[in-house]
């Protein structure tokens, strides 16, 4: 009996650990989305599927679906291809300024899509400096924007794994006669595969639900599922049509997640980790350094354009737009000064980050366990996917869902200020999980068993075996979650209270109003937002809490 209990308690512990995030997901995701689907397909207490065939039969539906999936796939592939050399340079090499570059890479992630859209268009439009390319309102522009926004996901997710990878396996392969290319293909890539798949999954979800940037850069020629759902819900109030599209979106996302999970399961391996695997650059690294430099240049171009334009007005150079940031009366379009908005943003982001990291850690610990029973294994894998879903479902569906489902006690939260950090945490959670899980899974389970054999309880054993390798990825995840919440616009604009707007919301309000000063302030605020991000990420890098170490 005693032995039975010994085995039961850890399982129960892991189950309890899963309970809190599951509850969170159920209340703040399943309930609202279910509510919206029910309004569309089960109105007035009876199934109504009359419009389903019509929606599915529309030529536009098929076109939109193909375009969404096609662009998201292309965007994912390109982002991964360009992100890999950068991840190598930033996480496998040591050189002065590396910390700054690592932070710079995250900048695009927080820039408001509407501002980036305008900047990209300013660069690419027929009168702009890159007008010759003819990419204004072309799908190439959308693709570039996908890469621009999501590079950080690949660089940080893969970099976190790469950083701790023991160099000697690659050395052994090279000594056996493998060329650098063969070493990468046969040794490095298989070891990176789980984190690569993780990153690709996230990028795909971000690309397939991108909304503002697709419309701004593509013109209206290119509709995506997301923009269709938005149109049907907010303009036409065609809830049935929106529900059908949401279901298609859901099915596509679940299929993709299942595929990714299979890929991960095939490639996952425990990896020996070493400290100090990074080395100074060598002559042979120049091609990669050049590629990484080009990618950084590509990131900086729109950012610098933005900074440059924020420093100009009709007559020349000026700091006025920055001076106005502290002035609450600077623009009649705003009720608060941008510095106040920065404070709101920071406070909300701290809440959201703590929420996302705590919940994400619970999820990551649970889904990194590899139970022996195949049923339990399937549960774990489903759980893993479940927390990715919020990224794949339209923000407008979730937002409207909040309004129609969280309307009675004890969950009457519709007007509560806590919904903003909760919504942001919902977006940041998958990033945290995807950053932590590959690392946790790569820890040899024998380490945990060894600690348990030495008399450590399940938590203590997990901490002993996994705590040391978790330090860095946890920091990375925290920085990531923070950046996501700082930059989150979709859900926040839906839920933020007008007296406490966040920076992206303020930027959006500024850019939607006429006046040269409003645009200038919007740009200056965007620069401020990215500098803020760079600073926070830079500090996180500097903390260096614990290195990924072997025992």
């Amino acid at each position, binding site marked *: 009996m005693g032995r039975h209990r010994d085995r039961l308690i850890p399982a129960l512990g892991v189950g309890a650990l899963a309970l809190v995030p599951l509850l969170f997901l159920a209340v703040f995701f399943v309930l609202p989305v279910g509510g919206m689907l029910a309004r569309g397909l089960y109105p007035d207490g009876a199934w109504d599927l009359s419009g389903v065939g019509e929606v599915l039969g529309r030529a536009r539906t098929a076109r939109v679906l193909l375009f969404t999936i096609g662009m998201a796939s292309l965007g994912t592939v390109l982002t991964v291809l360009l992100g890999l050399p950068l991840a190598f340079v930033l996480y496998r090499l040591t050189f002065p300024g590396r910390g700054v570059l690592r932070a710079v890479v995250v900048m695009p992630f927080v820039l408001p899509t509407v501002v980036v859209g305008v900047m990209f268009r300013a660069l690419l439009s027929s009168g702009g400096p890159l007008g010759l390319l003819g990419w204004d309102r072309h799908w190439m522009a959308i693709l570039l924007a996908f890469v621009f926004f999501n590079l950080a996901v690949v660089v940080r997710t893969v970099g976190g794994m790469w950083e701790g990878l023991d160099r*000697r396996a690659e*050395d052994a392969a090279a*000594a*056996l*006669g493998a060329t650098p290319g063969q070493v990468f293909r046969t040794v490095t890539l*298989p070891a990176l595969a789980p984190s690569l798949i993780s990153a690709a999954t996230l990028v795909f979800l971000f690309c397939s639900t991108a909304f503002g940037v697709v419309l701004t850069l593509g013109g209206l020629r290119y509709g995506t599922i997301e923009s269709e759902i938005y149109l049907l819900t907010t303009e036409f109030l065609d809830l049935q049509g929106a529900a059908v599209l949401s279901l298609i979106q859901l099915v596509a996302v679940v299929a993709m997640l299942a595929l990714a999970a299979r890929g991960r399961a095939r490639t996952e*391996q425990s990896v020996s980790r070493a400290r100090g695997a990074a080395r100074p650059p060598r002559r042979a690294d120049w091609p990669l350094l050049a590629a990484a430099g080009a990618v950084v240049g590509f990131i900086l171009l729109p950012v610098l354009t933005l900074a440059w334009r924020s420093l100009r007005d009709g007559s020349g150079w000026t700091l006025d737009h920055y001076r106005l940031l502290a002035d609450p009366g600077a623009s009649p379009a705003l009720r608060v000064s941008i510095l106040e908005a920065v404070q709101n943003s920071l406070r909300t982001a701290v809440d959201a980050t703590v929420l996302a990291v705590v919940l994400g850690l619970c999820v990551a610990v649970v889904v990194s366990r590899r139970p022996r029973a195949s049923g339990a294994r399937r549960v774990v894998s489903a759980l893993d996917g479940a927390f990715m879903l919020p990224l794949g479902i339209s923000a407008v569906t979730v937002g409207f869902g909040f309004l129609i489902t969280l309307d009675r006690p004890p969950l009457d939260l519709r007007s509560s200020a806590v919904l903003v950090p909760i919504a942001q945490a919902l977006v940041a959670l998958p990033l945290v999980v995807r950053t932590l899980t590959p690392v946790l899974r790569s820890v040899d389970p024998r380490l945990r068993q060894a600690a348990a054999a030495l008399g450590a309880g399940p938590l203590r054993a997990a901490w002993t075996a996994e705590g040391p390798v978790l330090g860095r990825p946890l920091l990375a995840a925290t920085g990531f979650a923070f950046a996501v919440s700082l930059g989150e616009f979709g859900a926040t604009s839906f839920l933020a209270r007008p007296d406490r707007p966040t920076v992206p919301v303020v930027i959006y309000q500024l850019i939607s109003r006429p006046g040269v000063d409003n645009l200038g302030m919007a740009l200056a605020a965007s620069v401020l937002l990215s500098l803020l991000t760079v600073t926070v990420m830079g500090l996180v890098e500097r903390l260096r809490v614990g290195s990924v170490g072997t025992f």
Partner: protein
Amino acid sequence: MLRLDDVSVRFGDTVAVDEVSLEVPEGQVLAVLGPSGCGKSTLLRAIAGLEELATGTVRVDGRDLAGVPTHRRGFALMFQDGQLFRHLDVAGNVGYALRLRGVPRSAVAGQVEDLLETVGLPGYGARAVTTLSGGEQQRVALARALAAQPRLLLLDEPLSALDRSLRERLAGDLRGILTGTGTTALLVTHDHDEAFTLADRMAVMLAGRIVQHGPTQEVWTRPVDRQVAEFIGFGTFLEQEPAARVARAAGLPDPGGRTLALRRAALRIDDAGVLGATVRGAAAISDAVRVDLDLDDVGAVEALAGQDVTLRPGDRVRVRADATGITVL
């Protein structure tokens, strides 16, 4: 066959390897012996082409390897923890180098099976590497390295991660395989037993420099200075009158003004011994008892006793001196 001249490796301001010159003749095994952090692993990596040289040359058969990348050097590397490719099974690991060269699949399978036979793991091909014990992993790593038919096998503490009995058994096997296949090898280790068992020649490395270099037996018995002697297991150092006294007891000539270095095994508790001593303490080790003695007119020394005697602090004993564990520096 392998020849290093004035090889230095620097990391920033730190000199990890300082003007090392070495030679490994064809078919021989050279052990570079040194404590942790002495730069021996860096030296190994430099030979493999994994670190850039600050000065000096690495030559194989007279040809300078400067500018030849690791994968064209025709070497193989084996680490203390194997560094097996975990996404491949045992056969996949062993056949890695063969597949790189485009050897047909069917031929690979045959050679892999032969190699597994050689390292004593017949039929292990389909096993996942994570299911292997430490010793088995090292055997697979050895097979993987041998599959490449390297001109030179580089071994980084190949046995250090294993437990004692396994280490001893595998050391014997490894020695047999290396000589049997005629492989030229360079081994770095901090463990003198490992070096002693595996190597024909030995180089002692301290703080980035090679301080002694010669046939294993010679280095083993005739360390050039006290530092080397301490590192290879000489625990007691005597001078002047005490040195002369012990030398005389061992039937050696008077060392004059020079230092006499003694291994533990040089002094044995033996009723027939000519020296008298008082026991200060004793502790059992694997196949003997280690005794701390106060040797009359000499002072504190270490000695060995048979396991059948019981010794207590204060006991008077007789001690025999044995010339094989004694050297003059």
